[in-house]
């Protein structure tokens, strides 16, 4: 089989700005500049060396054209996707020689101000959805409730997922919920938001920025950086999120196609994954992803996550920085941060208690069945 050109692309730089529930006295320009400077420094790349740009912000809508001016660079490639889809888009551009150094950055602050309503990005305005009081928690709950009815998945399994992720955030000094331990009992005792999701089954809202730089493996050899390699990736999409009813039988295995593609590209299987930086908007979604990606059979995810398996010292540790539940969930930067956490974990950048011993392969995901898409990528410490 021909060599996959994605394997000649690597992630050379990553950076997270400060994250907080609300970042006082900071604006999106400052956040983006911090994210870009930090990322370039981590990769050892000068701004004018960037020839591909995909940068955005949530509220001020800062875009690649403005940012190219700040960088003093003239890109020959611009990306349009965000999160993992953006990383894969950039990797494809590099693999096909359209660009050689791509800088991605994303930031959000000041977007969620009317706190009597759920966050603006959670509220679809579609005429067949909005009038029924839907928002993201309810959309994902409709997927979870069906699974629980069909397979008997228990609230205790959902609570274990949340507690495992939040326990990582509780000891991560960079996490928004640092110092806030959480047990499954805490999750089950928290107030109900949208049945079966209690408050602690749901991710937080927060503010912050992040950046990521990709280049060729060949170029990375000349840089003062710690490259992490791309083993595979893919998207799996089903159309209009938060418009169509989230019917489990149609969308419940979202991500399976992407996982199969990614595993095949990397020549590996689920059992080879050391770290699971999975998308964690709501607790049940992690159970579903283990099933969709083939870590266990459909309907068995609830049992799969028990017995410490997804804890930091388990076989498949989830969201090792605390994820969207306890680390941060800011704008669309949080989507990029799934890949960033995979990189930081493989580089051994977390505190010893959050470091997965001998981790070589990490899988990062975005989206979920409630949103009718799941994108993912697998990265490794060694070039495939």
């Amino acid at each position, binding site marked *: 089989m021909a060599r996959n050109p994605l394997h000649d692309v690597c992630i050379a730089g990553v950076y997270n700005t400060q994250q907080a529930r609300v970042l006082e006295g900071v604006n999106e320009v400052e956040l983006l500049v911090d994210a870009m400077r930090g990322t370039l420094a981590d990769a050892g790349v000068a701004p004018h060396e960037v020839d591909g740009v995909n940068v955005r912000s949530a509220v001020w809508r800062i875009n690649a054209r403005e940012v190219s001016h700040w960088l003093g660079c003239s890109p020959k490639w611009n990306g349009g996707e965000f999160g993992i889809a953006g990383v894969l888009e950039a990797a494809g551009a590099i693999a096909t020689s359209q660009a050689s150094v791509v800088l991605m950055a994303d930031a959000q602050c000041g977007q969620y101000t009317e706190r009597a309503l759920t966050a603006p990005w959670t509220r679809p305005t579609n005429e*067949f959805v909005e009038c029924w009081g839907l928002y993201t928690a309810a959309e994902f709950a409709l997927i979870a409730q069906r699974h629980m009815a069909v397979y008997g998945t228990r609230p205790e399994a959902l609570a274990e997922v949340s507690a495992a992720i939040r326990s990582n955030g509780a000891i991560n000094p960079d996490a928004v919920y640092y110092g806030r331990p959480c047990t499954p009992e805490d999750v089950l005792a928290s*107030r*109900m938001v*949208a049945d079966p999701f209690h408050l602690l089954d749901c991710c937080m809202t927060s503010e912050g920025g992040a950046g990521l730089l990709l280049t060729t493996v060949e170029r990375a050899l000349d840089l003062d950086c710690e490259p992490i390699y791309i083993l595979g990736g893919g998207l799996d999409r089903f159309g209009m999120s938060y*418009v*169509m009813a989230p019917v489990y039988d149609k969308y419940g295995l979202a991500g399976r196609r992407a996982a199969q593609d990614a595993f095949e590209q990397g020549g590996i299987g689920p059992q080879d994954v050391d770290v699971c930086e999975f998308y964690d908007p709501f607790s049940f979604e992690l159970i579903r992803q283990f099933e969709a990606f083939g870590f266990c059979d459909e309907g068995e995810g609830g049992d799969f996550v028990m017995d410490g398996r997804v804890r930091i010292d388990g076989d498949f540790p989830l969201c090792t920085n605390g994820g969207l539940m306890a680390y941060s969930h800011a704008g669309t930067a949080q989507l990029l941060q799934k890949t960033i956490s995979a990189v930081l974990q493989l580089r051994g950048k977390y505190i010893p208690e959050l470091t997965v011993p001998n981790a070589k392969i990490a899988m990062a995901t975005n989206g979920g069945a409630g949103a009718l898409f799941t994108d993912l990528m697998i990265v490794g410490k060694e070039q495939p």
Partner: protein
Amino acid sequence: MKPQRDTPLPRPNVLTRPHWDGCREGKLMVQRCNDCGTHVFIPTPVCSSCMSSDMQWVETSGKGRVYSFTTVWRPQRPEFEVPYSVAIVEMEEGWHMLSNLIDLEPEEVKVGLAVEVVFHAASDEITLPYFRPAGA
């Protein structure tokens, strides 16, 4: 649980107006493809099963079963009275729609519950299709 008194109301467009006009007249209207027979919702310019443009609005039975549900305690916006029960209803004709369940208590909602449409005028223009236990 009862119909909401103050919800953000749909703003029908050329594609969706037949559905909302039907609701105002007490009919649950959906598009059916004349080529392959599939019922399609939400409204689309072509059949999502065979891409035919030969789509016809038809009245449906308004009967179905709760496919999934969630009882919401933290409302989307403060105008919503809690709890309210969001459901995906699987209609007799095989299509799915989102709605709210009324005329029952939260603990009575179950996957598989037989339900029927009940229309509630929300404004002069907009009537919303809620669902209640069948035969209630």
